[in-house]
């Protein structure tokens, strides 16, 4: 029932950037499948990740922790992970928890892209 799906777009500048658009609820139920998919991207050449959270309705600690974990892996590979377009609800959770100190959060896709320039 708590569903989460992603759409991945690969855009090519000097380095490839993966835009990952997340839809639904990222909770303990939907988390394993989500994690598998993102790990699959990280395992290949995906070290620059942009997460579009516009259609993410809910995120629990499982999802938030995973974002931290993915960011760590991406940075170890000299890439980065950013989030853009979060709903006010999710933006507020990210801020209260202090996650925004470790993962950059942008208002929109354009400003998020600038993180990789």
């Amino acid at each position, binding site marked *: *029932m*708590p569903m989460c799906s992603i759409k991945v777009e690969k855009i090519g500048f000097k380095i490839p950037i993966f835009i990952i658009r997340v839809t639904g*609820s990222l*909770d*303990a*139920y939907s988390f394993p499948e989500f994690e598998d998919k993102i790990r699959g991207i990280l395992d290949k050449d995906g070290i620059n990740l942009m997460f579009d959270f516009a259609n993410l309705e*809910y995120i*629990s*600690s*499982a999802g*938030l*922790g*995973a974002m*931290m*974990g993915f*960011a*760590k892996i991406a940075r170890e590979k000299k890439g980065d992970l950013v989030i853009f377009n979060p709903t*006010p*609800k999710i933006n*507020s*959770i990210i801020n*209260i*928890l*202090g*996650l925004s*100190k*470790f993962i950059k959060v942008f208002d929109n896709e354009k400003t998020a892209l600038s993180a990789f320039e």
Partner: protein
Amino acid sequence: MKTDSIYLKIPSDKFFLGLVRKVITELAGGMNYSQDDIAKIEIAVDEACTNVIKYAYTSEEKIAFKGGKDNEINIKVNINTKRIIIEVSDAGKEFDFENYHVPDIAAHLKEMKMHGLGLYIIKNFMDDVSYKRTPDGVNTLTLVKYIKKG
């Protein structure tokens, strides 16, 4: 003051977390909470139920409430004009809540650690959190959130 109680019982299965959140946001949404507070209550209850599914009921053994079925989670919501009280109960393993200390979240995040956020969220997003285990083996985590006067 009129106080209402609403009860929800679900199988200990992550599949039903979305249902729990719907019930909690519908009830809290009908009270005088800010959107932020509703989101905090929603995630706190989700984390509490997730922990029961992950840690209180293990897949090997099935445990039932007296007269109940195996591996169920009981959620009691008590509401009035002042606050919401949510009791999450299970018949599973005991949790040493008193001696569990949430991590230093800033240091934790700095090290990019992925785990241990659940109880931090529960304790920091709710006004009052307590744990009780009765002699008949029922664990109850009680979460309280007061309505702020505007």
